[in-house]
């Protein structure tokens, strides 16, 4: 059992959720309420990581993060090390490939807030930020929780993109999914079986908690 890899995966998933939550709130809210030209294209772009093969997606991220790219150069100049094959690089990649899992449910969550309720909030004297905090978030939060749980669980399980962008450096970029693959490759079936079972248990637990929370919300509003 590779505890280092498990801890790395949990850290990766945790940071991804932390960074994606505000992005999901503002992008999801924007897409839910605004009508503008090219909205379909934006929505399609957000969904793209869902349909692209992880290797294709990982390849483009590798190009974008590499030492020759502007982002890669900026990263080296600022932090003194490469973005690829680092934990930070994994977090950035993870944020990008989780965009559909975070933004889509968040958007649905905000769409579920009736427009007259939002209008009532502003007619009650609430500024847009106050309305977000007092009215929209409390009503949209089942969508936001779904977004965060999907992101967390999906990050734990992602394999192809992590391998392309991070490689398999123990303690830095070797996640539990990659550790399982390595174990199988090294004929360590027992190790692979334990880690797979742990991953199943964690994923099941997270999703079960979400269902429990959302049924409580249902009762609270019902």
């Amino acid at each position, binding site marked *: 059992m590779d505890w280092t890899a498990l801890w790395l995966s949990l850290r990766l998933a945790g940071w991804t959720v932390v960074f994606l939550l505000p992005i999901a709130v503002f992008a999801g809210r924007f897409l839910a309420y605004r009508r503008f030209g090219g909205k379909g294209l934006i929505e399609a772009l957000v969904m793209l990581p869902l349909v692209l093969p992880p290797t294709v997606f990982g390849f483009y991220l590798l190009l974008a993060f590499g030492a020759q790219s502007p982002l890669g150069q900026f990263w080296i100049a600022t932090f003194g090390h490469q973005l690829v094959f680092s934990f930070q690089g994994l977090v950035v990649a993870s944020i990008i490939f989780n965009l559909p899992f975070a933004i889509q449910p968040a958007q649905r969550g905000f769409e579920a807030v009736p427009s*007259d*309720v939002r209008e009532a909030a502003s*007619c009650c*004297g*609430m500024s847009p930020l106050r309305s977000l905090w007092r009215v929209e978030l409390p009503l949209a939060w089942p969508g936001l929780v779904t977004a965060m749980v999907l992101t967390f669980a999906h990050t734990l399980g992602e394999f192809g993109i992590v391998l392309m962008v991070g490689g398999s450096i123990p303690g830095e970029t070797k996640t539990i999914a990659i550790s399982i693959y390595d174990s199988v490759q090294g004929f360590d079936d027992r190790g692979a079986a334990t880690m797979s079972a742990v991953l199943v248990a964690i994923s099941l637990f997270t999703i079960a908690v979400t269902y429990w929370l959302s049924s409580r919300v249902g009762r609270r*509003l019902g």
Partner: protein
Amino acid sequence: MALAVMAKAATPIPLDLAFRVEPGELLALVGHSGSGKTTLLRTIAGLWRPEVARVQVNGRTWLDTGARVDLPPHQRRVGVVFQNYALFPHMTAAQNVASAMDHMSGAERTREAERLLELVNLHGLAGRKPAQLSGGEQQRVAVARALARRPEALLLDEPFSAVDRATREKLYAEIIALRAHLSMPVVLVTHDMNEAQLLADRMVVIDAGRMVAEGPTGSVMSDPDALRAMGIREAAAMVPATIASHDPDGMTQLATSAGTLWLPQVEGAPGSSVRVRIMAHEVILSRTRPEGLSAQNILPVKVIDLQSGGGPAVMVRLAFGEDMILARVTRRAAEALSLQPDDHIYAVLKSMSVARDHVAAGNVA
């Protein structure tokens, strides 16, 4: 503290009109769906901006497209009761009301929310969520919430359309009673002429974004242009009356300036004032006092004038004591009776022809 509104637009709903509401006055914007009345209300609240528009309240400009002034809704001190109330489902009744008072301290807010819920007869329900309240109770919470901001203009968007008839009658009475506490201009959007006539001081009839009639409710109700827009079957007059007595057989005796009127069970103690809406098409005219008729109400009236609109019917305006009623009869009948102005005739009205929700407490505006 008057509210002055002007709006012009081509899309999505054509608009071209201007009106003014005085402090404490209740103006009804009446029209069919799609006439632009709700768009006007949204313009006042800041939820919609027509191409050219000006909204001034209390000498302050909320919207002036010419001067590029457009305050967002949260900066306009406006109270809105939405058609489906739009209550915040995750908050209790008291929290809903308090949510419009962010400028006050916590303790003050709670006290004020309680006072407002008391004002709309909702004591004891402050802790309930909207889903645990009936339609009528939800509407009262929405009214309390709209008042919580101490609005400079109160806007009511079809506030009675989502409740059943019995509840509506009760809410009418409550709004009439509540008006004593309101000093700001009030705008009521409705498609229901009865509602407008029972509640409003003045009416603006809108058709395709234009004002087709405007004035005190009584005069608009007999205005041919207004009736053309709203449908001639809506023609009616409002008669003030006093409850004289309740009979054990379920009838109520009302005293009007033209004599006694018998109606089925009217709510209210003897001596209290009510307003009765008499529909023009329910009134029968007779040259002589008819005998052996089932109708309970036969009252002497005097013809004021006859207006014919080109159709098969004529509208007869009748002096009803010190008041006025309308009768819509066929041209053929008017000719058979050879009705002329100043003729003394009889108006016949079935007791049952006055619907329960056509009687409201209070004096004629």
